[in-house]
């Protein structure tokens, strides 16, 4: 299908309008303000003054809407990260992100793709623990997002043919599975944010005595959050990277002698539960 009949001036008009709409909002006054003086003059000249406002001010509605819509989209994709960072600071990271990664598709949800990496690189002025917590928060938000956006995948159930050579196969993690570690109770906080309309920055919670592991898995119309033992999480990671035989051997190699004694019973249970819970989408042999 071709765009027959699009007049040449329309592309030029849209380029000027696009330049105006993407103009960064000024932060120097302590609020996010449009700067109409910087808009392309050829566009401004074509805009009529309104009953109450000048043409530039009317264009500024679109300029502000562009940014606030993207800020909202990113906050909604990263609810925990944005509240812990504080909206004012978070919006600055967001602006930086969208200036370097302007949205390209029709799906605004996908405009947040890649933010986690930029955020981890860009965090400034934070002490070590706070920085680690913010990076972890972004990883948790991104994990929920990946599970939410995952396509439908059939869960792997070993066939009778697979059973005889199961140990030589590598399990393929479901697209709707994420394994997450937290050093502060961040997932609890995230769960409380769903209907929280408060906008103030959240204080960082105290660190946990030891980190906790979770599996997020998409099931029907919900995302299940399943607690894991640390070694169980480690095994799940290894299973996705190596054959079952190698994964079990590597886990065993990492364990203390005391842990090793209880390992066969535990790994059997973990493996069976992981299949039962739909963590895998298939198995690959002969790699």
């Amino acid at each position, binding site marked *: 299908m071709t765009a027959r009949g699009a*007049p040449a001036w329309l592309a030029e008009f849209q380029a000027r309008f*696009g330049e105006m*709409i*993407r103009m960064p909002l000024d932060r120097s006054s302590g609020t996010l303000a449009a700067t109409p003086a910087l808009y392309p003059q050829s566009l401004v000249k*074509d805009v009529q003054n309104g009953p109450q*406002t000048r043409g530039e001010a009317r264009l500024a509605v679109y300029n502000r809407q562009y940014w606030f819509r993207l800020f909202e*989209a990113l906050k909604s994709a990263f609810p925990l990260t944005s509240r812990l960072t504080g909206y004012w600071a978070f919006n600055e990271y967001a602006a930086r992100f969208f200036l370097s990664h302007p949205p390209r598709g029709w799906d605004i949800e996908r405009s947040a793709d890649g933010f986690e990496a930029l955020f981890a690189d860009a965090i400034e002025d934070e002490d070590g623990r706070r920085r680690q917590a913010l990076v972890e928060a972004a990883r948790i938000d991104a994990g929920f997002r990946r599970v939410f956006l995952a396509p439908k995948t059939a869960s792997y159930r070993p066939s009778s043919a697979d059973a005889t050579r199961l140990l030589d196969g590598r399990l393929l993690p479901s697209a709707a599975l994420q394994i997450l570690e937290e050093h502060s109770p961040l997932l609890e906080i995230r769960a409380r944010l769903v209907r929280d309309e408060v906008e103030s920055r959240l204080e960082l919670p105290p660190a946990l005595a030891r980190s906790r592991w979770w599996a997020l898995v998409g099931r029907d*119309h919900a995302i299940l959050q399943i607690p894991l033992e640390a070694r169980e999480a480690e095994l799940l990671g290894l299973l996705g990277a190596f054959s079952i035989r190698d994964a079990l051997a590597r886990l065993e190699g990492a364990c203390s002698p005391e842990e090793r004694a209880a390992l066969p019973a535990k790994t059997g249970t973990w493996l069976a539960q992981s299949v039962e819970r739909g963590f895998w989408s298939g198995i690959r042999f002969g790699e």
Partner: protein
Amino acid sequence: MKPSPEASRLLDSARGLPEGALGVGLRILHYPYIIEHTPNVDYFEIVSENFLGPAHTPRQRLERVRQHYPVVLHGVGLNLLGTAALDEAYLEALCRLADEVGAPFVTDHLCWSGAHGESHHDLLPVPYVPELVEFAAERAYEVQRRLGRPFGLENLSSYVEFRSSTLTEWEFYTSVVREAGCWSLLDVNNIYVSSQNHGFDADAYLAAIDFSRVLQVHLAGHTREPDGTIVDTHDHPVADEVWALYRRAWDMGGPFPTMLEWDARLPPFPEVLAQLAKAREIR
């Protein structure tokens, strides 16, 4: 103008909804209430783009709603007035979704939303000139042909008018719908918002509408900014002035299906239902 009996029959078939049906825009925060209470709503309208991707969770939730209610599709990403070719993959996904949910019709906006490879995720205006009537009509015709079902265009709320326009907004809008042979999604709040922002007569706009082409009417709330500009925010109850305009539209072209959009600062669902009750009472 009121539809003739023949146009009414055609219209009823295009709408595929009960006469005077009252619907609501489906939003994630309302799912639990809707699933638990199966409220008295004639149909739901979904934002197409929320369900076009491969994500399974939203589709599962939608399926649960669809088991109890008719669903119509309302898009924001068609980019009808963009200069790039219509997005084949997007249209294909839209066709698939419409088939899957059995949508009686599909709608989007008479606007552009991106250019030069970038998406602005907004519903943006153009100068209203005859040259763009032809351009938009050709593309809307093609979209309707591809969809194989009625396709409706929504009138925008806008904050700017261009000196280069040679047509009024309603001349532009009705001409595109007529020349494309497609349908209207008439947003009464948008008419009010634009009439206040640009100082035109909202009743003159309504008088130009061919109600025999109106698939449904939208209602929504708006926000008045300190400088007097009204912004189409969908975050308040419907304003009294918009209810009054709705009543006049009903007298001119009713009955028609009516859909309430509430997108931000979402209230509990019973408050949304109260707005539907008000619509029923007013008309």
